[in-house]
């Protein structure tokens, strides 16, 4: 007959929780004040990238819109001129809208993009209070300008930015 063992088992359980109370530090992350860094391949809110000279990478080809399984992206293209240049090559995206209520963050737009213009970033703090606000437009999605660079449209010398898709290496990540 086990006389003492059940009692010891009870005490073992109690001691386990007491040990947690005394020895363990809380693992809580105080969210708005401290944030956990996201993983390298995290897929957050989209960012439209720029070249180092401030020109937009997006050329308005709408391949992302074609690849999007949720039909969340709308792109409208317009012609670039040397007097009003937004991106290298012939065309740029005059309208670029993503409906965040439809987006499923699959990252297919990122894969489809020939210029690596659209990238899923780190930002996961997306909130809006109506459906209108859920449609993120180009002004919101575009990356901030590098320091000391004037905004697009830029005035550029003719014949310099003729190639719309830059030469690239194979992706590493």
């Amino acid at each position: 007959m086990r006389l003492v063992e059940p009692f010891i088992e009870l005490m073992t359980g109690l001691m386990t929780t007491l040990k947690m109370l005394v020895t363990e530090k809380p693992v809580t992350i105080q969210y708005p004040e401290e944030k956990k860094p996201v993983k390298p391949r995290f897929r957050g809110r989209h960012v439209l990238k720029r070249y180092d000279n401030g020109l937009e990478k997006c050329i308005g080809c709408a391949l992302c819109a074609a690849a999007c399984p949720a039909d969340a992206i709308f792109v409208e293209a317009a012609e670039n001129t040397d007097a009003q240049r937004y991106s290298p090559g012939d065309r740029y995206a005059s309208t670029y809208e993503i409906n965040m209520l439809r987006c499923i963050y699959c990252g297919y737009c990122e894969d489809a993009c020939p210029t690596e213009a659209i990238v899923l970033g780190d930002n996961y703090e997306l909130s809006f209070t109506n459906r209108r606000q859920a449609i993120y437009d180009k002004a919101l999605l575009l990356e901030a300008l590098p320091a000391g660079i004037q905004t697009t449209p830029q005035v550029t010398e003719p014949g310099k930015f003729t190639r719309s898709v830059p030469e690239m290496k194979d992706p590493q990540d």
Partner: protein
Amino acid sequence: MDWTIWVEWIIKSILLILILLGGFAYLTLFERKVLARIQVRIGPNRTGPWGLLQPIADAVKLIFKEELTPAQAYKIIFVLAPIITVVPAIVVAAVIPWGQVVSIFGREVTLYIADLNVGLLYVTAITSIAIYGITLAGWSSNNKYALLGGLRASAQMISYELALGFSFVTAIILAGSMRMIDIVEAQRAVYYLQLGNFQIPIPMWNAIIQPVGAFIFLIATLAEVNRAPFDMPEAEQELTAGYHAEYSGMKFALFFMAEYIKMIVISAIAVVLFFGGYLGPDITKLPLIGQYLTWLAPWMGPVYMFIKIVALLFVMVWVRATLPRIRYDRLMLLGWKVLLPLTLALAFISAVGVLLAQDVNPALIWLIPVVSMGAGFVTIGLVDRSLRRKAYAAR
């Protein structure tokens, strides 16, 4: 009767109620904090430093919540039930001695409201009334889950009342009185255990003389106040919230208040019965500063009470954080088939031990802890064997 005595009673009653309400508020915070730390979390920390204003935030939230009454509820009882639950919880505290006599502005004031010579009987009588509130709440809500919760509560509280009553009896036998102050004073003796050159003082608390009785008392109080692992009446996973499923706003707050005030009061009773009440180390015997502290000595009673009550409350929270809810049939089995016979045996052992100590040799008082612990472990062994056999038969 002198009119000043009425003023004194009223002031003491109001103070006691305020202390209990404040204690209730901060007990919720204490519980959440301790639970959080055991679960390796932080707990409430947004309202004020260390979340100290959390109870106030909770109260404000509950006051401004909508009061819903189900259309088919029995309105009068539905409103009355929370009151019936909360009043006994507060009223019980009247007989608890928080200390002896202190003098305030030259007036001798006792640190308890009522000095009943049948204090313990009063406690058992009043705690039983609280069952009505819970059962009526479950019934008048006209909700299946609430009714089941109420029924479970009444069945459970009645079952454990017996074990509780018999562990009261062990303390009564050891003190020879039902007066709370006599029970405390009976635990005043200190036994010096000689270990080589060291003298280890052992206070002759009832928990030392009757450890099994104290243990069963703590188990039965958990069941009595519907705390985990005996929180069948409000089992969230089975009954949504049990008897208070249909209550909201301040009516719900009253049930909540009743539960936590009962926790405090029943801990206070446990301290009085088994853990030496307001007794503690004599501060006037402290080296160096002791002689200047004679004025403080009577006031140390409430302090010792407070320390012991907080320790017991911590144990309640700790047990809640550790043990899962037990099955309903096992709860009944434990109450009727295990705790009741065992406490009967304990009452018998205590009575025989006290008689032997009085008539033969005072050292024979130590037979009580030895024999009762033996009885306790044999009971554990029997329960364990029975459960194992059942598990074997089910296979």
